[in-house]
């Protein structure tokens, strides 16, 4: 049982996850930011590795990715920075990024390096189920690395079931079909979608992401799922000076 499973077993609701892009706003801050987030009361983390063409992301994460690449972030640098991760951080950590940088690094090598660094899971939006199952799942499974799939309001019930069967930590529910950085829109249709997923009694817990940026949206999401993920709002927050000292303030504003 990895850190993710343990977390979901020990804490039942209001789980808060934070996303940030490694290498933004500067290099060699990944573990310091992670440490500050854990101290501020965050339950688990998603560390993004940047890609030149992030099609699922809005302007905020496009910008942080571009800057991170300019700063020299890549997978070698990231794994170098993560060397003392597990001396300083104990909450579950996921890596999130696009498939091509992983493919060039080597999928098997990536999985090994990630687990060595103490990473618990990966979110790769553009690695589809078919390719994952037929070509790559063995590397994830052999190394004990979770692969987290996304579900949108348009994902069919049958497909949600398949995703649930391939998952072994949690399912990432998108608050709408959109790129990152938009505001959560609650409508009857979206509430129906959350209720529909809840009623399916999946074996994996669900966490809601995309559009969660405030205490209000966080609380709303937690009514329908075990917790929620804040991404773009935190990346925007990192633009200011003294961001490390001010992290507790930001987290407090979300959890209230």
């Amino acid at each position, binding site marked *: 049982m990895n850190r993710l499973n343990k977390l979901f077993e020990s804490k039942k609701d209001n789980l808060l996850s934070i996303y940030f892009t490694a290498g933004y706003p500067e290099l060699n801050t990944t573990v310091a930011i992670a440490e500050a987030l854990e101290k501020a009361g965050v339950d688990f983390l998603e560390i993004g590795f940047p*890609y*030149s*063409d*992030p*099609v*699922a992301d*809005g302007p905020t994460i*496009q910008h942080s990715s*571009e800057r991170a*690449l300019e700063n020299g972030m*890549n*997978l*070698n640098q990231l794994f170098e920075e993560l060397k003392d991760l597990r001396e300083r951080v104990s909450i579950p950590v996921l890596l999130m990024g696009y*498939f*091509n*940088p*992983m*493919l*060039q*690094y080597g999928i098997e090598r990536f999985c090994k390096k990630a687990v060595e660094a103490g990473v618990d899971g990966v979110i790769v*939006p*553009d*690695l*589809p189920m*078919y*390719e994952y199952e037929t070509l790559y799942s063995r590397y994830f499974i052999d190394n004990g690395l979770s692969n987290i*799939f*996304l*579900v*949108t309001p*348009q*994902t*069919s019930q049958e*497909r949600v079931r398949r995703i649930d069967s391939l998952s072994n930590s949690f399912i990432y529910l*998108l608050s709408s*079909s*959109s*790129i990152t950085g*938009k505001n959560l829109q609650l409508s009857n249709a979206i509430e129906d979608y959350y209720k529909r997923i809840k009623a399916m009694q999946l074996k994996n817990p669900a966490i809601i992401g995309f559009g969660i940026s405030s205490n209000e949206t966080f609380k709303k999401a937690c009514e329908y799922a075990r917790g929620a993920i804040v991404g773009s709002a935190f990346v925007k927050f990192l633009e200011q000076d003294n961001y490390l000292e001010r992290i507790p303030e930001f987290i407090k504003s979300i959890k209230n």
Partner: protein
Amino acid sequence: MKYGVNEQGYYGDFGGAYIPEMLYPNVEELRQQYAKVINDPDFKAEYDGLLRDYVGRPSPLYHAKRYSEKYGANLFFKREDLNHTGSHKINNAIGQILLAIRLGKKRIIAETGAGQHGVATATVCALKGIECVVYMGEVDMERQAPNVSRMKMLGAKVIPATSGSKTLKDATNEAMRDWINNPVDTHYIIGSVVGPYPYPDMVAQFQSVISFETRKQLLQKTGSELPQYVLACVGGGSNAMGMFYHFLDDQAVNLIAVEAAGQGVNSGHSAATTFLGREGVLHGSRTILMQTEDGQVVEPYSISAGLDYPGIGPQHAHLYKIKRAQYVSITDDEALQAGLLCSQLEGIIPAIETAHALAYLEKMTFKADDNVVICISGRGDKDLSTYIKYFNF
């Protein structure tokens, strides 16, 4: 078909649908419907009728006599430049708009590089009275300004892509983001044989009319359906795939795809994908693309906006890998000179994209009875300012 796509959307090692879940329902709907719809007799009748009466097909196969004299073989120009809107792009745009209507879509988005696909899409949207949004790199909007005006006149909204190199790749990213945000009522008309399956196959089928007609026309003019050589330029590769399609299974036909070397393959300013690229994933398909060691996509360069793309379609990647087609490259200078030559020998001002294919003739040697077909993919009106600047007219 031996070189066609398999059920999972692959051509050998290339293709597939590497897309985020947000795009899955759209792409899956297309995958389930496209073959059914385009083989439906009603669809075929409407498509063929529009190609004939609206586009002006079949496009002529012109025996270019002065070119033939110069190069010492029988050279034929497949005149896609004579199509309505001035390039081969309209063949695909008509097909996809009819498909979108049958899928009940109310809004069309597209990406464009040179603007030819944007103009073709804006045209068919006007024809069918459907809302049209075209994404175009900011740099391309400047170098292909006449096409921006044409799109606006046709009623389309043109949105500049301001990220990255501000060219075709970035316009494609923006169009994909729009599609993610509008998953139900919008159809994305991709303009080339790129993107997630089924796009590469669907676009290739719509463009295959080029080689379908060419075979019949060649038979009439030369007594044989098969030429010795077929040439076409390649950015993403839609005119080349249309030009190659019905010759793929005839091994005697040499297929030559001409990429844009920009300022030279090793100059650091190039778009010669097969020379500079490696296998990877771009815009939803596994293909060959220009990238850094870390898998970041490299900004390509070509004077021709339509060839300024860091990848090639997955079927091209396959044909390259198994050596069914030959991939070569031509620099900016060579292309512009070929554009001038074609203008003055044949009275045809070609698009700079097309001029790349014509330029490769200089590097070939022929036997006197060789029959050679070159796809004149588009006309050069949109490129006049670039030609004028280069030649100081």
